[in-house]
């Protein structure tokens, strides 16, 4: 009873403990913001990374996997596997349709040749196609009037899903959103093409280099594709460099299609033909697998591996040596595949958590020193309380409660701050990215002038040093802020090319927030406990005699 009364009174009757509340709030907010952004980043990495690779990824060397069709049907028959899709990945150069002169820009790209129908069943490819009419009225509502998607019909989405130009029937290319410079992301998150032209429909030329099974590099080959759509995965690295073309075209370009094989060492026959050795089967370099719902990626991986071993064993019994599967393939779950992307971020998050947890100790120390001086100041009051019958535990509880109150109020305020910041982090980031608005520095400038006046008033007229000093500090701070705002030329802190994503995650990680709040409270109480124990040890007679 009296403990509550007194700790509340102590909390509200002085300014210094409010500094402790502020410190706890800032610490908690800082930790929550950092960990939330990192966690959100991790989640985005995982989710987005996963969207375009499925659950299990089988990759072979450049030679590829022959007779992949057979294996795919084996895989599809597995109870763990929902769908499997073949992919060829290679590097290429893309001749862009811009600028308008004869010399065009060349973009290095990572080519994924896919079977769009099965690929869309394994990955979220279909959902990541950007240019499409709004699905429903609700989606239409979210778009701004100048969003080009509002004027589109379903054919553009169909072209993207089939990787072919509906009008001409030509095989088409789907590019990552950031491959072309024409796409400018708006702050609302949508893309509106710059310069008034629009990529879909333009032709691009893709140049790739076929590499033989033995590693011999052949002459580069090229093909022209109309752009039929673009994908936006959210992973900047992917969106910056990935292009999709139909599998059949890629097999031809890269000489991975089924072809007769002649014996080049033999003499040509009378008609000039070399003796036929056999047929090299068509190959792909990757197989992506989607697990059945409810099947764990690791379990699916194991099933895929067993299936691969069976496939290799079956192929070994085959007579044609050309169709031998490669010695080694890597079979990874999506998480393992993204390991080198996710791992460092996870480590970084732990590092941050540990580093920022040190702040708690600072907080606890601050509370300790504030409380220590309060206990010394209040020694007489403690003696009074003891003299009217308060127990040592009662005295202890006053200060623990006081620390608890600071911890709870501070931590909750911290959560509030963190929530506001995290929720608006992209706005804040964009504001930092722009030049400071004139109003901002005019305001701070005006405020600093005001505080000069206040400082002079306190120092000269009233002759008071403390308010004078405080106003002077305010003046200097505001002056520095004004200069900083004036000099601010817009810095992008969250560089999408470093952080893979073009948006900063803006979800508070509530689980971690709860842990952080718990930590804030615990450390506040720990900080309070030491002075509280001292208070409990106060000898009432001594306290009253000298108080």
């Amino acid at each position, binding site marked *: 009873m*009296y403990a509550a009364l007194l700790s509340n009174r102590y909390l509200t009757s002085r300014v210094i403990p409010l500094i402790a509340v502020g410190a706890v709030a800032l610490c908690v907010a800082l930790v929550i913001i950092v960990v939330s952004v990192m966690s959100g980043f991790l989640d985005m990495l995982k989710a987005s990374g996963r969207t375009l690779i499925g659950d299990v990824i089988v990759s072979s060397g450049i030679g590829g996997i022959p007779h992949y069709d057979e294996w795919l049907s084996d895989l599809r028959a597995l109870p763990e596997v929902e769908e499997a899709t073949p992919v060829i990945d290679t590097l290429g150069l893309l001749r862009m349709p811009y600028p308008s002169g004869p010399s065009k820009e060349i973009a290095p790209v990572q080519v994924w040749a896919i079977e769009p129908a099965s690929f869309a069943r394994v990955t979220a490819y279909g959902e990541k196609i950007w240019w499409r009419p709004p699905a429903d009225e609700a989606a239409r509502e979210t778009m701004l009037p100048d969003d080009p998607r509002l004027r589109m019909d379903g054919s553009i989405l169909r072209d993207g899903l089939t990787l072919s130009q509906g009008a001409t029937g030509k095989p088409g290319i789907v590019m990552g959103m950031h491959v072309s410079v024409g796409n400018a992301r708006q702050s609302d998150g949508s893309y509106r093409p710059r310069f008034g032209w629009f990529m879909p429909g333009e032709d691009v030329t893709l140049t790739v280099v076929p590499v033989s099974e033995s590693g011999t590099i052949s002459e580069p080959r090229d093909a022209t594709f109309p752009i039929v759509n673009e994908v936006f995965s959210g992973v900047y690295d992917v969106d910056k460099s990935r292009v999709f073309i139909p599998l059949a075209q890629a097999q031809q370009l890269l000489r991975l299609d089924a072809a007769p094989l002649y014996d080049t060492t033999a003499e040509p026959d009378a008609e000039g033909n070399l003796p036929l050795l056999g047929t090299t089967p068509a190959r792909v370099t990757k197989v992506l697998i989607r697990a059945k719902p409810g099947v764990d990626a690791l379990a699916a991986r194991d099933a895929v591996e067993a299936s691969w071993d069976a496939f290799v064993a079956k192929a070994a019994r085959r007579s044609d040596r050309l169709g031998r599967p490669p010695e080694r393939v890597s079979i990874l779950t999506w998480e393992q595949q993204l390991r080198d992307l996710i791992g460092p971020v996870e480590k970084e998050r732990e590092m941050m958590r540990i580093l920022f947890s040190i702040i708690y100790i600072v907080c606890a120390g601050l509370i300790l020193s504030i409380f220590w001086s309060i206990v010394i100041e209040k020694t007489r009051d403690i003696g*009074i309380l003891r003299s*009217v*019958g*308060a127990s040592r535990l009662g005295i202890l509880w006053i200060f623990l409660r006081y620390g608890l109150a600071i911890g709870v109020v501070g931590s909750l305020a911290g959560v509030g701050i963190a929530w506001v910041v995290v929720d608006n982090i992209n706005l804040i980031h964009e504001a930092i990215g722009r030049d400071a608005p004139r109003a901002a520095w005019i305001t701070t400038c005006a405020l600093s002038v005001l505080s000069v006046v206040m400082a002079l008033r306190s120092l000269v007229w009233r002759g008071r040093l403390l308010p004078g000093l405080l106003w002077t500090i305010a003046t200097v701070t505001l002056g520095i802020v004004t200069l900083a705002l004036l000099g601010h030329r817009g810095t992008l802190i969250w560089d999408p090319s470093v952080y893979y994503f073009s948006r900063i995650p803006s979800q508070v990680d509530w689980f971690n927030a709860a842990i952080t709040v718990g930590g804030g409270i615990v450390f506040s109480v720990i900080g309070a406990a030491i002075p509280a124990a001292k208070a409990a040890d106060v000898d*009432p007679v001594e306290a009253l005699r000298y108080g």
Partner: protein
Amino acid sequence: MADAEQTPPDAGTDRSGRPPSASTEPPILAAHEVHRTYRFGQVEVPVLRGASIEIGRGEWVAILGQSGSGKSTLMHLLGGLDRPDAGRGTIEFEGRAVNLGAGRSLDRYRNRDVGFVFQFYHLLPELSVLENACLPGLVGGWFGHARAAAARRRAGELLEQAGLSHRLRHRPAELSGGERQRVAIARALVNGPRVLLADEPTGNLDATTGASILDLIAAQHAEGLTVAMVTHDASVAARAQRVVHLRDGQVVEG
């Protein structure tokens, strides 16, 4: 000393060295052969050397003595704020030793059985007059809402008796010394203790204000409160029924 002359004649009859009712009733509060020694490093300063005092039920005793004679020390022992040297003397309240129990029982003793008034009022500056007066009622229970309400009522009554009902919401700093001491007396009495221990309650006040404080104590005494009061001032001691002196660490009657 001038004490004896100023003692009213009615009190004089009780100056036998024993409380008036001693023969019939056991004392409410007593110290038996208590020793209290302070230590400065190697040097030992024995302040109380076998001091004994018996305070009868409903009695008003004044304790006089020179500065440094150990009056406050004795009061602290009687009030359960301090303990005698280990094994050297006992303090008995209603026949039971209070200084031997655990800290908890001593806390309870201070809270319920005795009320303490100090020379320097010792009010909590953050609390209002009413809250200060309630304080002992709030101590000693975590969820004592009913008790707190009762304490509030009783504190209101006591403050009204002390003529402070218009200042309940004021902070101690806004009161005069005499007013503060009235609040302190209300606080000491709020839990309805049997004994009031006052250590120079008027020592910091002018004569008129001091007299009004003593009137307040006298009113409570008339209602049956036992009072032990330390003072320097013979005219203050004259208000008591019995005067004892503390000399050489011992209580001397008369």
